[in-house]
C-alpha cells in the first residue's frame, strides 16, 4: 500500500526527515511513535502534500504510484486521508456542505455521479452514529466553536464518510479524555479492512490499547530507529524514548 524510501524533507533550512524508510502493507495498521520534534507530524504533512515542506530526496510509493508527484487534492481523491492534529475552522461554511463537497469531489474523480442531498443525509447519519456526533454537527460551521474533542470527532466522521485507502491519523488522541478516545477508536476500528491501511501517529501508548497496531515504529531524529510489534509500545510507555535516541545518534 505505502512504501517510503530514504525520505528527506525540510522546512526552510531545517532538515526534519533524514532518510526515513517505511513499508505499510495493505490491511495493516502501523503506529508511529516518538518524542516531540522527531518529525512525526512532518511525515503526516508530507504524505498529504503540504507545500511548506520540501522533499529533497527519497520517494514515496502509494499503490505503486509516485505519491509525491500529485497535488494534495489528487492524493485525497486517490484515497489518502489525513486526520489533522489541529483541524481548521472555516467560518460561514456549513459542515454538511464541506462533507458533501468532499464526497462528491472524490466520486467525480472515480467517474461516479454526485450524490444528491437526500442520499447524502441518509449516509452521513449512519456515520454520525458511529462517532456519537450530535445532530447539530451538520448545520454548524466547519469546526467553528467546536470543542477539541468535537473537532477530532469531526475528523473521524470525515474519514468514515470518505472511506480512504490510506488513513494517516496525526495525534488524533491529543486532548481527548478516555471516553472520547474510546468513541473515536471505535470509529477508526470500524474502518479496518484487508484493503485499507492506517498510519497512527501518537505520543502515547494508551491509544494503541484501543486501536491495536500490527507494527510499531519509533521515529527519532528524522528516521525510524526501531520497529516492533505492539509490545514495543508498552516498553516505550515504561522506559521512555531516551534509550533509543542515544542509539539513533550513535
Amino acid at each position: 500500500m505505502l512504501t517510503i524510501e530514504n525520505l528527506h524533507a525540510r522546512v526552510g533550512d531545517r532538515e526534519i526527515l533524514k532518510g526515513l524508510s517505511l513499508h505499510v502493507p495493505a490491511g495493516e495498521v502501523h503506529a508511529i511513535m516518538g518524542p516531540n520534534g522527531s518529525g512525526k507530524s512532518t511525515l503526516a504533512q508530507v504524505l498529504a502534500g503540504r507545500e511548506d515542506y520540501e522533499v529533497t530526496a527519497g520517494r514515496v510509493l502509494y499503490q505503486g504510484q509516485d505519491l509525491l508527484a500529485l497535488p494534495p487534492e489528487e492524493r485525497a481523491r486517490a484515497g489518502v486521508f489525513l486526520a489533522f492534529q489541529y483541524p481548521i475552522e472555516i467560518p460561514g461554511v456549513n459542515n454538511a456542505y464541506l462533507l458533501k463537497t468532499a464526497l462528491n469531489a472524490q466520486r467525480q474523480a472515480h467517474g461516479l455521479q454526485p450524490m444528491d442531498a437526500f442520499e447524502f443525509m441518509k449516509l452521513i447519519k449512519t456515520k454520525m452514529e458511529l462517532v456519537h456526533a450530535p445532530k447539530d454537527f451538520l448545520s454548524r460551521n466547519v469546526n467553528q466553536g467546536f470543542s477539541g474533542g468535537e473537532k477530532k470527532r469531526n475528523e473521524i466522521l470525515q474519514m468514515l464518510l470518505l472511506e480512504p485507502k490510506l488513513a494517516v491519523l496525526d495525534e488524533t488522541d491529543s486532548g481527548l479524555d478516555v471516553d472520547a478516545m474510546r468513541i473515536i477508536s471505535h470509529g477508526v476500528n470500524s474502518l479496518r479492512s484487508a484493503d485499507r491501511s492506517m498510519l497512527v501517529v501518537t505520543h502515547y501508548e494508551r491509544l494503541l490499547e484501543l486501536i491495536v497496531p500490527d507494527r510499531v515504529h519509533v521515529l527519532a531524529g528524522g528516521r525510524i530507529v526501531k520497529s516492533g510489534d505492539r509490545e514495543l509500545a508498552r516498553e516505550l510507555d515504561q522506559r521512555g524514548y531516551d534509550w533509543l535516541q542515544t542509539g539513533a545518534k550513535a
Partner: protein
Amino acid sequence: MATNSDRVADLVKRKYRHGFVTDIEQDTVPPGLSEDVIRMISNKKGEPEFLTEWRLKAYRHWLTMEEPTWAHVRYTPIDYQAISYYSSPKTTGTAPKSLEEVDPKLLETYDKLGIPLHERARLAGVAVDAVFDSVSVATTFKDKLAAAGVIFCSFSDAVKNHPELVQRYLGTVVPYRDNFFATLNSAVFTDGSFVYIPKGVRCPMELSTYFRINAAKTGQFERTLIIADEGSHVSYLEGCTAPMRDENQLHAAVVELVALDNAQIKYSTVQNWYPGDEQGRGGIYNFVTKRGDCRGANSKISWTQVETGSAITWKYPSCVLRGDNSVGEFYSVAVTNNYQQADTGTKMIHIGRNTRSTIISKGISAGHGQNSYRGLVKVLPTAHGARNYTQCDSLLLGDECGAHTFPYIESRNRSARVEHEATTSKISEDQLFYCRQRGLSEEDAVNLIVNGFCREVFKELPMEFAVEAQNLLNVSLEGAVG
C-alpha cells in the same frame, strides 16, 4: 510555488459572460451637454413643465460644482462633453404598449442575459422592468400587479400616468443639489423604474429591474423611485450588465426610497457591469447615489448589494432614519479583482427615537484590486436610544491587492450605542490545504472559503438570486488564488 503561479496565470484569463453587443439601430443624440440637450431629452419624453424646469435647475447647479476627489479611487478625468446623454433603440422611440411591439432583438438580448421577458419563459414570481441604454423596453406582469394596486412601470410611464406621485416624491430623498453625480443625473436622467405600493399592501411578487448598457460612448443615467405607503411591503432587485469595450463608460444612477409608517422596503443589487480586462482597460465607472428615507414610524429599509463588476464603484446606499423606531440595514459584498477599484459603504443617519441600524460589509480583494469600505454612522441629538452595529471584514487574496476601511462615527446623543468591529485577513494557507486534503481543487477551495466569508450577506438575498450571486462571485474570482 512556480507551478502554482503558472496555473494561476492561466486561470486569470476569465471571460466576462455578458460582454456581447446587440446590433440594433439606435437613436443616439450627439455627444455633449447643454441646456438645449436637456430640453431635447425632456421634449423627447414629452415631460411636463415642472420636470423640465427641475432638470434645468439641476444642470445650472451642476455647472457650479466640482467632481469629488475624496474617494480612494483613481481614474483619468471624465470628459462630460464627450458623452452622449441619450440613446434608445430606434424601433421603440417611446415605450411599447405591449411585448408584441418590442423589437425581437431586444427580447433576444434579455434571453441571452437569462432574463426572459416572454410570457411563457418569464421568471416565476418576479416582475421585471428591462432598461436598455436610456429607455425602459418592457415591464412584465403589469396587470397582475395592477390588480393588487401596485404601480410598477418605467419612470417615463410614471411621469405620464402618475405625475402627481412623481412630483410629490422626486428629489425628496436625494435633492438635485445633493452631490456632483446625483446632480448630473437629475439634469439628464432618461429612464428607470418607478414603484408605488399602496397602503397596507404586501407586494405579491419580487420586483426587479434589469439594466443593460449597449450603445458605445453613451452614459447611462437612470433614476429609480420606490414609495412604500403605510404598512406596505416590497422586495426589489436590480441587476446590471454591459458589453466589453476598451473605453470606459459612465453610469451615474440615483435611487430614492421612501418608506412611510410601518412600511418595509428590501432593495437588493447584483451589480455585474463590465469590470474591464486583466490590464485594467475599459469597464464601467459606476458612480451611484442610493438613499432610503425611513420617513414613517416603525419603517424599515434594508439594502443588500453584491458588487462584482465595474472598473470603479463609488456608492453608499444609505438610510435616513427619521421615523421613531425605524430600522436601517446595509449588507454588502464587494469584490475587486484585476485592476478594479471599489469605494463603497453606507450612511446611517439616526434622527428618530430608538432607531436601529446594522451594517455588515464584506470586502474581497484579488489581483491588483483596491477595496475600500467608507461608512458614516451619525446620531443626531433627537435620536434617543439609537443603536448601531457595524462589522467590516476584508479578505485579501494575493499580495498586490489592498483593503481599506474608513469608518466615520458622529454621535450627538449620549443614550446612543454605536459598535464597530473590523477585521482584515488573508485567505489562509491552512484553510486551503485542509479543503484540498479533502479532495477539493484549489479553485473550489477558494470559492468555498470566500462564499463562507460572504454568507451573512448572501442569506439576505431573495432565494432566487442568492445562487446567482454565489456563482457570480465564483466567476469574478476565477484564477484569483495567489
